[in-house]
């Protein structure tokens, strides 16, 4: 009996891309320095980067410059080109290095990719995946540390996923690439090194499905991406308080698995929503409102939210660490419900 293969979140992304690019030649990858050293194959200087976060290493070598395309610093141009490629038969994966850069290219996602199907009366598919990096914790300050997935979730026509581990990263990226709608795939920078068993064969994890990361009976802690592990650590700590916490890992931000969230809260009667995003009109408020509207009769107390503060992400390390929601804040908020 062989031991299970363990790879990192980063490698899971590479593998999902490699397998889908082998399986379907319509799948292409484009973005800034997804290879690196563009045009220098001859000098053997190409694929110097494999992406700013090194998730694409080996893809250029295997698939070449027709399928792995480095772009100029022109997010509106290449994201728009990805939209144009998607509506004409390709299945592009476009990288937006940091989600914070969406401010220079949101139109192609918001008004074009998201609405093309609807505005044409359903006469076109937009099989576009935008892979982007979210979150704080790497000392890059206000312009490189936001979450912003609530922007994408707000827009009808977009699907949004935020995997919390390598296994789901591979399954959700595979599903995103095979999906006929535009999908925003959010990678939290701090998760890239996380590793666990990931099957070698291709598989899809369904978009729109959450999971119970830890069963419990007294309270439901709801997280996504990084905050799922925050909830799990809080749940562990709450054991000492005699509280048996259930943890829901959303995985998909849009569509949201309302059933899993609601049935858990109906069982436990208490909810704490944990999100690294800003509090106003963010994911936490969205989930809290869902619960307040549809599980009210089962609630034993207010719906708690633990989020980042309404402030830009500060640079200074101690401030940045205090900025991000941690297990102790989740525990404290939970205890207020008992």
């Amino acid at each position, binding site marked *: 009996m062989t031991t299970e293969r363990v790879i990192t979140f980063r490698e899971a992304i590479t593998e999902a891309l490699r397998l889908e690019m082998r399986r379907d030649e319509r799948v292409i990858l484009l973005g800034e320095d997804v290879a690196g050293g563009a045009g220098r194959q001859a000098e053997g200087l190409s694929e110097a980067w494999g992406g700013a976060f090194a998730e694409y290493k080996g893809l250029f070598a295997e698939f070449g410059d027709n399928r792995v395309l480095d772009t100029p610093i022109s997010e509106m141009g290449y994201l*728009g080109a990805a*939209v144009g490629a998607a509506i*004409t038969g*390709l299945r592009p994966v476009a990288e937006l290095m940091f989600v914070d850069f969406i401010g220079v290219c949101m139109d192609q996602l918001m008004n074009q990719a998201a609405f*093309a199907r609807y505005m044409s009366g359903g006469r076109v598919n937009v099989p576009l995946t935008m892979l982007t990096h979210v979150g704080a914790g790497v000392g890059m300050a206000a312009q490189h540390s936001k979450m912003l997935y609530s922007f994408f979730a707000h827009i009808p026509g977009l699907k949004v996923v935020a995997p919390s581990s390598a296994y789901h990263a591979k399954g959700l990226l595979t599903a995103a690439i095979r999906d006929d709608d535009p999908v925003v795939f959010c990678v939290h920078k701090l998760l890239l090194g996380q590793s666990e068993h990931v099957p070698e064969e291709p598989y899809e994890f369904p978009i729109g499905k959450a999971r119970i990361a830890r069963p419990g009976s007294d309270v439901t802690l709801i997280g996504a991406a990084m905050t799922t592990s925050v909830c799990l650590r809080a749940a562990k700590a709450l054991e000492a308080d005699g509280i048996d916490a259930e943890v829901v890992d959303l995985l998909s931000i849009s569509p949201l698995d309302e059933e899993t969230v609601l049935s858990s809260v109906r069982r436990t009667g208490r909810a704490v929503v944990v999100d690294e995003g800003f509090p106003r009109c963010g994911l936490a408020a969205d989930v809290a409102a869902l619960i307040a509207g549809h599980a009210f009769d089962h609630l034993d107390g207010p719906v708690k939210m633990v989020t980042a503060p309404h402030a830009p992400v500060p640079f200074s390390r101690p401030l940045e660490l205090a900025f991000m929601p941690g297990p102790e804040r989740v525990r404290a908020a939970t205890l207020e419900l008992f």
Partner: protein
Amino acid sequence: MTNIGPDNRAATAPPLNEMLGLYRTMVLIRAFEQRFATLVLKGTFSGAGHLCVGQEAVAAGVCAALRNDDYVTSNHRGHGHCLAKGVDPDEMMAELYGKATGTCKGKGGSMHIADFRRGMLGANGIVGAGLPIACGAALTAKLTKSGRVAVAFFGDGASNIGAFHESLNLASIWKLPVVFVCENNRYGEATPVEYALAAEHVADRAPAYRMPGVIADGQDVLDVYAKAREAVSHARAGDGPVLLECETYRYFGHFVGDQARYRSAEEVESFRARDCIIRCAEQLTKQHGVRAKQLEDIAADAEGRLDTAVAFAESSAIPDAAEIMTDVYSEVRR
């Protein structure tokens, strides 16, 4: 291919049947726009209506240089582009009426008419947004070796937005088979091009992207057609993108209802005096001996075509209320 101005006309005129085709297209576009304007003013339907009356030669001349399976992206002033690319007037009119039989089931309207069967990838409500999308269609053509070409129609005002810059640079370094067709009608809304554009011609910007820049007389369908053919074959041959600027004019305001107080009556007259349809009619009669009667028939056919289109639209059903929630995603949610 080299930068040639409106002064030196494209030498050889096309055969009569092609000229008649160009003429028919222009007449149909104008008839469509005039009918549309009447309906808007009557309050038949809501929304913004941007007429391309005066600019018909650009849509007709460029699209005549394209294959049926070539791609076109358009802007907010897109009726002419659609008709020239072969979109069905019945479905277009039904779309403007917001009917279920419209090109977009009535969900898109004037600024979003699309017909993927005709390679019409969509009009667009966002200035400049069609250019990157055309690059993407051209990328598909290049990677799949389909031999197709993409054309992006946009205005003089759009040449000052970032998407223009990024698209031309991207198309150039990737040698994409795309032709950027700028309809310089001298205004972006109420703003004169000489105020907003820090260049004499939009085509002057082509060298900044190592791209041929060509200027055509947008009031002369033959000049547009000849230069568009040259640009399209350049792109199709794999020699990269071309920026084709067509000097033209919109006879009416920016939208139906705009009084256009930002320009002089003389200016309007000077362009009407060089009307693309009248000019083509003269060439047909004088040079090809086409009889006036035949031209009248073409005009009558166009009007007849529009009567049918309006009848079709008016007799069509409005979309079912459930349509609000369909086509948001590939599968219907919940």
